[in-house]
């Protein structure tokens, strides 16, 4: 009833291959896009800068990692290091006088180049072994950044993001920074939405399912594994640069440590492999749930007048958060994207539940 399928006829190949053949989906996307565009004027600054902004940046990063993990089936435990390379690269380039638009892309290329080197490991090893070799990348990059003062920025190991302009417009306030992040996020999202219907995306899927079977049908697994690493690292580098310029406004090595890599992997797994909407939902859960749970538990303890120690109060959200993730994965191992899909399928035929789609 909500998703009316009656009257939708695919009379041309273009119509058949549209991203959203159902009109309601298109309306939904348009509304979401509109909301995202007017958010800075409607939302209080607190929600814009500390919830929405990090969420879209982290979603961008999760999309990049999802390309590698979800579409190409290669695990990566050093994604934060990839982001760090992009962030440091872009900041150093902007400080050297390169315009922001070019610096962020060059930062992405730098990440892609270094990420590709570690991608070679994927040609040899799989699964857990690949996890360990990408973990090595995390440690190596961490070590180099914090030990080379020319990169990290002196004994205090902090580099401030310089003031920057995009197409001549100075980006000085939270609103402007949000729009920059949103623009990058939309571009990456558009790219990821389309990956699935290109020969590239289908080749990745073939490699993911079985690499030698892919070779048998004429898909070169070497080439596509490396391409997956290259693309994913490029997106990661860009997300890292946006994170540094638009959100943190400074970079320190701790912002890209192993914990962050694990969080990125969690975003992809909890959100749903090879799903665009899953990357957004996963980023929301992993990034925002701890903050929201913390505030809720705190407020509840205050309201109920519980005299718990701050120690206990701050550990309760952790327990809830852990339970939440286990719960989601138990109920729906395919991730939050599948939960959304189930809901959509339900409403697709509602109220005629007996009608199978």
């Amino acid at each position, binding site marked *: 009833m909500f998703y009316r399928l009656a009257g939708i006829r695919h009379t041309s190949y273009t119509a058949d291959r549209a991203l959203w053949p159902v009109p309601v989906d298109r309306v939904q996307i348009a509304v979401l896009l509109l909301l995202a565009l007017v958010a800075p004027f409607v939302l209080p600054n607190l929600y814009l800068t500390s919830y929405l902004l990090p969420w879209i940046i982290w979603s961008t990063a999760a999309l990049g990692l999802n390309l590698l993990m979800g579409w190409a089936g290669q695990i990566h435990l050093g994604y934060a290091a990839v982001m760090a390379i992009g962030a440091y690269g872009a900041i150093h380039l902007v400080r050297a006088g390169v315009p922001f638009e070019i610096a962020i892309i060059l930062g992405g290329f730098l990440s892609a180049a270094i990420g590709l080197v570690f991608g070679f490991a994927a040609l040899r090893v799989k699964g857990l072994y690949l996890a360990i070799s990408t973990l090595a990348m995390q440690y190596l990059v961490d070590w180099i950044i914090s030990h080379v003062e020319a990169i*990290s920025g002196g*004994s205090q190991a902090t580099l401030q993001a310089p003031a920057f302009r995009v197409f001549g417009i100075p980006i000085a306030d939270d609103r402007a920074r949000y729009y920059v992040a949103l623009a990058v996020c939309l571009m990456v999202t558009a790219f990821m939405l389309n990956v699935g219907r290109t020969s590239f995306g289908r080749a990745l899927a073939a490699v993911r399912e079985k690499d030698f079977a892919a070779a048998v049908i004429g898909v070169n697994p070497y080439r596509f594994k490396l391409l997956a690493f290259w693309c994913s690292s490029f997106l990661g580098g860009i997300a890292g640069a946006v994170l540094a310029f638009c959100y943190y406004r400074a970079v320190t090595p701790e912002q890209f440590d192993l914990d962050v890599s694990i969080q990125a992997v969690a975003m992809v797994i909890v959100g749903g492999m090879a799903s665009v909407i899953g990357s957004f939902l996963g980023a929301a859960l992993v990034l925002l749930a701890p903050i929201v749970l913390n505030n809720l538990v705190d407020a509840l303890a205050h309201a109920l007048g519980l005299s718990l120690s701050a120690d206990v109060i701050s550990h309760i959200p952790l327990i809830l958060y852990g339970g939440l993730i286990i719960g989601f994965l138990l109920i729906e191992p395919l991730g939050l994207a599948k939960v959304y899909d189930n809901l959509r399928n339900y409403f697709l035929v509602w109220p005629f539940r007996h009608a199978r789609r």
Partner: protein
Amino acid sequence: MKKTTIICAVLAALCAAGIGPAAAQDKAPIKIGTALDFTTVYTFVTAEYSQGQRDYAALVNARGGILGHPIEIDVVDTGNQPQRGIAAYERFKDEGAVLCDFLSTPVSRAVVPRALADGMNVMTLFHGRSDAADGKVFPTIFPMTPAYWSQATAIIKYIDDQEKGDLKGKKIALVMIDSPFGREPLPVFQELAKRLGYEFQSFPYPSPGNEQSAAWTQVRRFKPDWTILWGAGGGQSVSVRDAIGNGIAPDRVASVIWISETDTNIIGADQTKGLLRFEGVAYGKDVPAIKAIEEQVIAKGKGAGPAEKVGGTYYNIGAASIALVAEGARIALGKEGEPLTAAKLKNGLESIKDFTGEGLLPPVTITADDHQGGGRGRIDAWDGSKWVAKNQWAAAYQDIVWDLIHKSAEEFKASGK
């Protein structure tokens, strides 16, 4: 239906909780936002530190507040994640806090650019950027306590005094965590080695410091006369244990501020007798301010945590932090009147002169240029049950410290351009 009712009730409760209880006070509270790491890295210090902060605030409020204004401390956990610190910071700002505290170097580093842009005060006692002592470059960042560089000079000064001013040919080893924090004091030790003529060598161990035996076998070969520890958290007790295991007497080992009675008790209270450390805030219950807390807060059952922690190393640091803020707020309210804003509090803090916080602190004088507060500290030693001061509050070789502060602050300024 029942399910719906329950859900509605829970939602209503959550909404009510969100609004929060309305406190009945005569004058507007002075809000301090503390977003601390209770759960991840700084667990060794946070609970005690926060307890000290809240108990001292309760003491101020029991005495009638600051010119009638009670202090209100908002405590939230960040798990040492910068993004959660930033979220908390934005919330504090919205709720009208005049000062924030993060007690985590990564989180405060991430917040510094925002705080500078917003004019929000951030206190960074014994953590964060050492160069924030330069009030010209960091107008609203307040370390108010000796920077790590000042701690390094104080330790060398003590060693120099013990050796009767003759360090020529003596060997000093620095065993430190291999991180920016661990490498921070290196220039001080190297510069002083040139001045005083001792032989200096550093021995880094990998972070987080659970395994340091490789570094300590090298230290053993070096045969140092004095050994200095530079770490924090779990790595510290490993350092001390390895030092003792390698035949280094504890009374020849001096540590940066981050070692406490908890660590010495873990290793063995008797084995660690004589262990030296830098002390920036007076330890123990034998301090007028702590006695007042015991009488007016703890005895009345208003303590924020276990009573046995009162007077501990990190507890007293927490108490001292609020003592400094309360003093700054008192000056600001007296001079510039109501309401207290972040800008007024900044001026108040910069007018603090020879403040000792009823015995908690060395005389602290903060000016618009010097946010370090003078850099005074002392060395104390573990006697098997408590820390005993070995010398008087003093600052040492501040010329070296300020050279480094200015140099690093200039770098920071240049990086933002």
